[in-house]
């Protein structure tokens, strides 16, 4: 009787921890400890810097055009 009781308690305790570990959904960005959020952040920063590069390119092209006109 004692053994069965202990068995049931242990069974439910494991079920309890099992259900807790299932709370985290492993969809895309939340997988691998949400590391892809950091990756996404860095991609955002990189895209920003690249956008800045394109803008500089355009500015310099305008200046070149103006100098060549003179």
């Amino acid at each position, binding site marked *: 009787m004692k053994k069965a009781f202990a068995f049931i308690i242990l069974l439910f305790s494991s079920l309890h921890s099992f259900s807790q570990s299932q709370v985290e959904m492993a969809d895309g*960005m*939340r997988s*691998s*400890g*949400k*590391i892809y*959020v*950091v990756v*996404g*952040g*860095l991609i*955002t*920063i990189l895209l*920003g810097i690249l956008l*800045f590069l394109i803008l*500089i390119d355009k*500015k*310099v092209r305008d*200046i070149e055009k*103006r*100098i060549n006109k*003179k």
Partner: protein
Amino acid sequence: MKKNWWKILCVLLLVYTLVAGFLTEVPRLPILHETIRNQYFHVCMWFSMMILFTVSLVYSIKHLAGNKLMHDTIAAEAANTGIFFGILGLLTGSLWAKYTWGAWWTNDVKLNGAAITMLTYFAYLVLRNAIPDEKKRGKVAAVYNIFSYVMMLVFILIYPRMSDSLHPGNGGNPAFSKYDLDNTMRLVFYPAVIGWSLLGVWIMTIQIRIQQIKNHIDL
């Protein structure tokens, strides 16, 4: 080469930040998980922005004192670059908020404070570009810039401290406060702040040089 040592330092620090930022061991905290590494990237955007806005303020005051066109150009381009970093901060923060708090935008004090700051500086650019006369433009923009800097101090440094924020470290949220920001994180975080700030200054100097060439051609 001697004058450009800080650009080399910037590159080295940023490479170090990326490598160490992804590979070093970080505290294992609930909710945050690996996104604690965003402190090396997202948080640094705001540091960079504040340094650029401070440069902008200094040159606005210099412009008011000395009335040199160059100082007005520097102030405007510093504000421009600061806004660029502010937008990057908002975007990276928004992405982070979606996967930690569950929403792209919340009514958190820091979020709203940052948004108001960005709007104040947008208004600076609009105001400056709306005045065709160069001398008048410099004066009016410089005076407004001092105002917007004060607004930034209020909305980024003071206002968030007056109430709780959802941000890590505020209101008992898991965070890298003085207890959690361990020394390995400091070892990456401080170089990261310097590296991203140097990148901001670098971008600013390029913008200023282009603008000065434009001014020169128009004369």
